[in-house]
């Protein structure tokens, strides 16, 4: 499950045909551009979720 969350950005960004399009535009910016930019906060959020879920387990590991 955690691994799946970490792999999502790879799927969303490496499958280029998903987003190689001009429309729909957002504030005049073509889809190709705002779609990729949107993955920045989404990736941060995914990492934050995984980090929170694993923090105590990781802390124990880091101590060893």
């Amino acid at each position, binding site marked *: 499950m955690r691994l799946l969350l*970490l*792999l999502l*950005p*790879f799927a969303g*960004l*490496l*499958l*280029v*045909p998903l987003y*190689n*399009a*001009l429309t729909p*535009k957002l*504030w*005049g*910016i*073509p889809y*190709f*551009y705002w779609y*990729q*930019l949107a*993955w*920045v*906060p989404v*990736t*941060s959020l*995914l*990492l*934050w979720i*995984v*980090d929170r879920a694993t*923090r105590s387990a*990781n*802390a124990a*590991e*880091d101590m060893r």
Partner: protein
Amino acid sequence: MTSNPVALAVFAVLFFGAAFLGTLAMRLRPRGEGAGTGTAHEEWGLGGRRFGIWVTWFLVGGDFYTAYTVIAVPALVYGQGAYGFFALPYTIIVYPFIFATMPLLWRYAQKHGYMTAADIVRGRFGSRPLELLVALTGLVAVLPYIALQLVGIQTVIHALGLPGQIPLIVAFLSLAVYTWLGGLHAPALTAFIKDVMIYIVVIAAVTVIPMHLGGYGHVFDAAATAYTKPGTGLLLADGKMMPYATLALGSALAAFLYPHTLTGVLASRSAQTIRTNAVMLPAYTLLLGLIAMLGYMAHAAGVVVARPNDTVPALFAAIFPSWFLGFAYAAVAIGALVPASVMAIGAANLVTRNILGARSGREHDAREARIVGLLVKLAALACVLLLNPQYAIWLQTLGGVWILQTLPALICGLFIPWLRAPGLIGGWLAGMVIGNWLVFSDGLVPTHSLAAIGLPWTFYTGLIALAANLVVSLGLSALLRTGRAGVQPRPAL
């Protein structure tokens, strides 16, 4: 180039002021509790492994997103359109990769007092030849990178109107003095100043310039008409989608294998510092996406340049008043000083510890590392003087292919316990031979068509070489394992 005294004055005050502040950092570092537990070499070369969340954020951000990014990414977008944006997916997917791998690497390095990738590999596999290969690969891959930062500083000083070799001399001397005096503490402090300045410049650029040009919609509309060559434009041509994706993936895998980026990671205080940073660092990527759009704004503003790398300086000169131009150029120059310094330190750590074999960590090692750091910078200066800048960019492309060949030893070694040094050496050789052969036979273009093996795609050459490397590394290691098992007496059934 016309002389611009206002811009020059603003530039000089900011650039030398920031650099001077950085050199003070070594003196100002905390000496109280927790300080001075490491060796003198760890202090100069790894900041005493004490950098917390914020310092790490600025330091890694400062040496990963270099001034060269501010110049080269918009230049590529200006010339090619959408293809130049591959840096955007690249600098997003790099973070899940960092999150999953770098804390493990940090933990292992901290436990054993390791400072470099080659240290870690030696510890893991007990092989001196493999250590040497990893160290030499890192050194050779980072040299053209330092050279490009010197070119970055040289370019803006030249744009301010200073003649002849003066810009390059100033660039080199400031880098040399700065690194000698400050160690890794200097870029950690200066990175903060650099970031604030770059943010101001970029936010000014991405708000003021589109206002001048009638909004983002208009910028994209105007840029769309500027691309007439086949394969360029606001979208990727069919044949460019696979190169785009594989370049992004390959660059992301390579990014934190370099000596300078790994130095930033290993200087963190804890594994959790790295995880928290993986969550926060994408903020820089937002900035990178906006910087890339400067390439389109240049088209919309009607900027025409002979060399693509002049795109951003020319756009700034066309839009900004003199005093802000000086500020912007200083931001770019400091943005080159920070990573160049970390690169030289990372390379010096490799040479002193892994090539010369000095691991006592005492004061004379720190001095030796300083001297080697200076030699590294001289080698980078020689790169600038002997090669034309075009070659430097090619060398950097090759550098990416090279550094990727250390991934099986450094990263896969964390997860696959049965990998063996001879297997990894064989894999490295296979990857290097295939990678270099393909890049050179393709005229130094870093992508290669897979038509020869019946596939309709074109891939980033680094990934092709990495695939060969992995096949050989895993195959040979598996063979060695079963071979060794065969020697041992078999248990009775």
